[in-house]
């Protein structure tokens, strides 16, 4: 998506720490950038934080490849509180805790189900637990329970990956030895 912000053409919409910013193209006149509210970063790039009105306008036209901001469009910009939807919910940690508790329960259920006749079902529970954790983390970014759960699940995912690789190699070696011993018998 390309943004034409008044005289500054071909800006890019990016996200810095979750906040939308306009990134000015290199070589733009610095005086002009400063006049239009852009700030120079330590890496030499010029950025401008997008306010809620501008962000609402961008969201309204999010499927357009080019968005123009000029005096005429700014007059028509109306407030769409999309950007700040989540801030009101951040404090609601009760719902986040419920989501996390359900997620932990589903994750714990995964283990006994894996040893039943249909181990594939444990995959459903594992994915559901992951999704619930992500919902809690995205909707309630300030929830400590969700943050801790996220770290635990990432750690768990890495362990699962390592165990899977080890299991494949072990199984392969075991099968190879089995085939070798059968070949020697004949």
């Amino acid at each position: 998506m390309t943004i034409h912000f008044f005289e500054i053409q071909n800006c890019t919409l990016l996200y810095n720490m979750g906040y939308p910013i306009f990134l000015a193209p290199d070589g733009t006149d610095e005086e002009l950038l400063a006049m239009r509210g852009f700030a120079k970063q330590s890496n030499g790039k010029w950025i401008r934080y997008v306010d809620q009105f501008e962000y609402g306008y961008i969201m309204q036209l999010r499927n357009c490849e080019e968005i123009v901001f000029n005096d005429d469009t700014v007059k028509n910009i109306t407030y769409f509180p999309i950007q700040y939807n989540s801030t009101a919910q951040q404090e609601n940690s009760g719902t986040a805790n419920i989501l996390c508790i359900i997620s932990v329960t589903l994750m714990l259920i995964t283990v006994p189900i894996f040893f039943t006749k249909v181990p594939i079902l444990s995959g459903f529970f594992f994915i559901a637990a992951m999704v619930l954790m992500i919902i809690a983390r995205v909707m309630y970014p300030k929830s400590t329970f969700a943050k801790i759960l996220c770290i635990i699940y990432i750690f768990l995912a890495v362990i699962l990956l390592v165990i899977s690789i080890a299991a494949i190699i072990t199984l392969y070696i075991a099968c190879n030895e089995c085939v070798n011993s059968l070949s020697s018998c004949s």
Partner: protein
Amino acid sequence: MNIHICTDYFLFPPYAIMILLSCTAGFTLQYILNVKRGIQPMTSGFITLLSPFMSFFFAFLLTYAASGGQKTGLSSMGGLFGMYLSVITLALINRDKGSTKITLENCTLVLPLMYSISKTGCFLAGCCRGIPYNGPFCVKYSGKVTETGCIFPVQLAEAMVFFIIFAIGMIMLAKKCRHTSVYLLTLCAASKGLLDFLRESHIGKAVSLNQLLCLAAAAAGIIYAAASERELRGNTDTVRASLAK
């Protein structure tokens, strides 16, 4: 010229190594593309966290369900479905249509690369093999894992075709072409559908399950392109109307 592959491997099975390499390359590239194209690092990270589990789960589930619970193994079509489902899940959580389009496009871009690498694994292991064939470049497997007569190197053909599709996708992305993902998806579905005729598993079947799924994937891509084009036209008209005021 014939190709001979001995399946008496030593410590590391090449199939597992290639699948691992395919996942590492695919998910890393997907994350880099997402971040580079303005998706929040947290959202990109969650897609990378969810994608491996969903793609492996659905890859297993499709083989398991299609065989009536008799077989286990990885199905590429199931993996593809899992990859897209993980992106759609994050889109539903974030409720941001703009970023959804980019993440879906990035997912479509990396899929041919992942498929290409994993097919190299199939070629080395001798699974998903081709129809009997005695022409040039026919493959003969020997050893403990797979033993066959001369067959068509369909896995190698798939690996090469999909790598070319991946390269085309990256060029289209660099040139900022519109509907890159739809062209790629249609190209992938058509290639996979046609190459499926050269597989051993296709013998005795008019149309395989893979071909039906390819047809469905291509149709879904075309419908999505038509819908987004219509929406884009509507938005452009709105902007023009507001600027004309």
